[in-house]
């Protein structure tokens, strides 16, 4: 399960994706970006065509950060991508 919160502005998306194994964060991001490129703000992507992690946090369902060094993230039940915002 992949959850995208505010990565596409104003949208909450919960989706299941097919991805080449081992599932790395980079492969997952490329798949998400391929699907949603038209809706993603330019500043949310970096020069490598991946998510700009200065703005987008990636983590598991418990809030543990995921990064490109993880060899396989398929074991976790959920992967979150989120643009944090402070409510008021």
């Amino acid at each position, binding site marked *: 399960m992949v959850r995208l919160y505010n990565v596409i502005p104003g949208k909450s998306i919960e989706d299941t994706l097919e991805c080449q194994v081992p599932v790395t964060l980079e492969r997952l991001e490329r798949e998400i970006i391929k699907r949603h490129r038209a809706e993603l703000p330019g500043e949310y992507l970096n020069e490598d065509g991946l998510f700009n992690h200065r703005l987008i946090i990636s983590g598991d369902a418990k*809030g543990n950060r995921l990064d490109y060094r993880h060899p396989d993230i398929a074991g976790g039940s959920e992967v979150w991508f989120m643009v944090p915002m*402070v409510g*008021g």
Partner: protein
Amino acid sequence: MDGPVTIKGDVKLNGYTGKLLRVNLTNGKITVEEIPESYLKDYIGGSGLAVRYLYDEIPVDSDVFDENNKLFFSVGPLNGKMFPTSGRFVVSCRSPLTGIWLDSSASGRFAYNLKRAGYDAVSVEGKSDKPVYLMIDNDRIEIRDASMAWGKMVSEAIKGIFDDSGLKKASCFAIGPAGEKLVKMACMIGDTGKAAGRGGSGALMGSKKLKAVIVYGNQEMQVSDEAAWKDLIKELTAKINAHPVSEALKNFGTSVAMAMTIQSGDAPIKNWKDGAWDGFMNISGITMAKTILRKHEPQCLACPIRCCRYVEIDDGPYQMKGEGPEYETMGSFGSMCLNDNLESIAYANMLCNEYGMDTISVGASVSFAMEAYEKGIISKEDTGGVALQWGSAEAILAIIRQIANRESLGALLGEGVRTAAEKLGHGAADFAIEVKGLELPMHDPRAFFAFGPTYATSPRGACHTHGYVGAYDGQGVMPEAGLDQPQDPHAMTGKGFLAKIVQDFDSVVQSAVICLFATYSIGPTEMARALTIATGVPFNAQDVLKTGERIFNLQRAFNSRFGITSADDKLPARLLTSKEGSPVAGFVPNIKEQLAEYYDVRDWEVDGKPSKSKLKEIGLDFVIGDLYA
């Protein structure tokens, strides 16, 4: 309205009415006076105008409930003419809860009506000996009997006042029973659930026996360049609409951030003690949108963001309809109390709105009491038989009622957690999470380090709106102030600087007066353009920041006179330990170093006073004699 104020010969200062309405409830005297030009140019309006007046007029040797404490309602040059998010007004006083500076803003239609009635500010002074309400109907001002509304919940009271006044399209803000009983976290509520929430201004209203203020105005406002004004509104509305945060707020409301806290670690859990909780998704705006949210109009006036929620619960024990809970309320009655029952939080929000109380302080007080109960410091004998177990929605609702009615444990909790902890003893102060007597809002300085110095130095105590650093820490820039790149939220340096520049800018935002959510899109440059077009006085971005610095320092000087020093600029010890189990475990702000940096960039002395040279530089020479006598 007589038109713009004439200043310096033929120069016209547009964007203002130039008038202050003074209403003395002791003798019934009502006067209108001209606001000095320098006050408007140097302090803008709203919060800034309020501190310029109240610094001079509230005596230091007085009690907060003395008749010489004043309620100062004010708007700014961006109000009254459909500037985006300009439905906000500010009410200021010396806080009954903290004893120091308080300004609190609320949205709705009050600001629009007050401005169009012909006033930039209303100062309510003295005390009535019987319940009254203030009616402002353009230039018809009356202090009227409110006995039919006294003792009533907010919505019923407002209905009665509308009926009595005969005004149909007015805006009305009222206190509920909590304000009448001088509960120190009481606030005024109006325009279907909008709250000037923090610091206890509702208790001051209650002490003056002022039940409500109703205002209607229909006079045209003038700005210096009508065509440019229309173009600016169009441009900035489009810019606000295009911002990702606006879109999230529009679709899910502020409580969308509850879901995000799972990754950001922002929301507090169990009175700030724990790092992880499984309930966040159940109380997020995303869940609310799928369950109890209903479409409803109107939203705040002139607001393209439209974050307000309207909810209905048709079945079960928490049946209600009305304003939905905001993020802060989800935190205070939700994660803080380990309560993931969304409907109960909506009900708790409704109760607080009807009694007229600040959901942040009330929820924080309930979670404080739950911890005291868990530790055995209080028992059922103290709580009126309520089992104050973590997660108990019924306990939360029972304590809300107790606080509002000053009954049982609620009589103590309604004084705020600082006072409650002092009276309880047995180490309760260790988990009374407050700064300068104001309970913390629901944002963790361990998730966004810039909240550290911001909370520690905010003029009204722990506050996220006098320095909305969450809009900058990690993602925002303010190149006009030298912030060219977003800061890492956990950077060990730079947070004193960040807190300072955001506090300065937001001081102008609270004086103009617009919503902080607009600041994702409106920075000092856009603010300068808006002020210039509105008033005809040329502002640039540096003028805006300097004006904000002046306002912020005058509020600090106000507090210095009431005894605030650097010793009061601190964070609760609990927030200076690792938030284990959270995404931000191991990240702890070094508040000592942050404050050293902050004092340096502010040019404050080690005792916490603005330096003489700084005061001279920003035009506050007149306070030097008070602070350095």
